[in-house]
């Protein structure tokens, strides 16, 4: 699914669009940065409640094209700026991590 469609289906508040046409087929959820670094498949969407600059650093490291901030977490300006520079989509959703994972799973995106 294209990132722009994914954001639309999740009713996400998009702070930085990244590459809206890029396809995402997998997702990972977690708030421990090194756990994500050690386990996530490159190219996955990442659902987290961590909303700070280092999230972008991890996304760059693992070629994560879209970061979904769950439970209404907002992206601070420095995170948005870095995501724009690195062409990463960052978006907030009101649903929890669990709810977002379920929605993604229903859309055919799995871990």
């Amino acid at each position: 699914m294209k990132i722009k469609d994914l954001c639309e289906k999740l009713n996400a508040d998009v702070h930085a669009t990244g590459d809206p046409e890029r396809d995402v087929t997998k997702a990972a959820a977690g708030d421990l940065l090194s756990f994500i670094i050690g386990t996530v498949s490159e190219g996955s969407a990442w659902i987290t409640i961590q909303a700070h600059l280092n999230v972008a650093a991890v996304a760059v490291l693992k070629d994560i094209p879209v970061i979904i901030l769950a439970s209404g977490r907002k992206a601070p300006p420095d995170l948005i700026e870095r995501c724009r520079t690195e062409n990463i989509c960052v978006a907030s959703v009101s649903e929890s991590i669990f709810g977002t994972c379920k929605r993604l799973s229903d859309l055919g995106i799995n871990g």
Partner: protein
Amino acid sequence: MAAPVCMEYRIEGNNFMVAGTASNNIKNTLKMLGIQSDVCRRAAVIAYEAEINLVIHANGGILKAVISEDKLEISTEDEGPGIPDIDQAMTEGYTTASNQAREMGFGAGMGLPNIKRNSDLFEIESTPGVGTKLISTVFFNK
């Protein structure tokens, strides 16, 4: 490649907001030099985790990357508190990170294991009260 390319960074302790800058720089330099992408990816993880360790555990230190003909060596040296039990520190899930670091998602207890997993050679030496030295090597064309 004629002479080795050396990069050296002084990493500031406990500054979470700039953490990752040096390792990103190393990754970009490797890409610019045309190093194979698999090596770039592994090196990026090693450099990032090593840099974060300096920030969250060691009150800062030196992060170095040396790119030579056939390999990349990433090393750190610090004068932090040292690691009393390296085997324990190498166990996934074990961490001594501060609450502040953990709240930000650091301190998963996977830093050193992630470095080791991505290294071809991994050496760590630590003396409590003196500091820690880490050397990770990745060979090209493996």
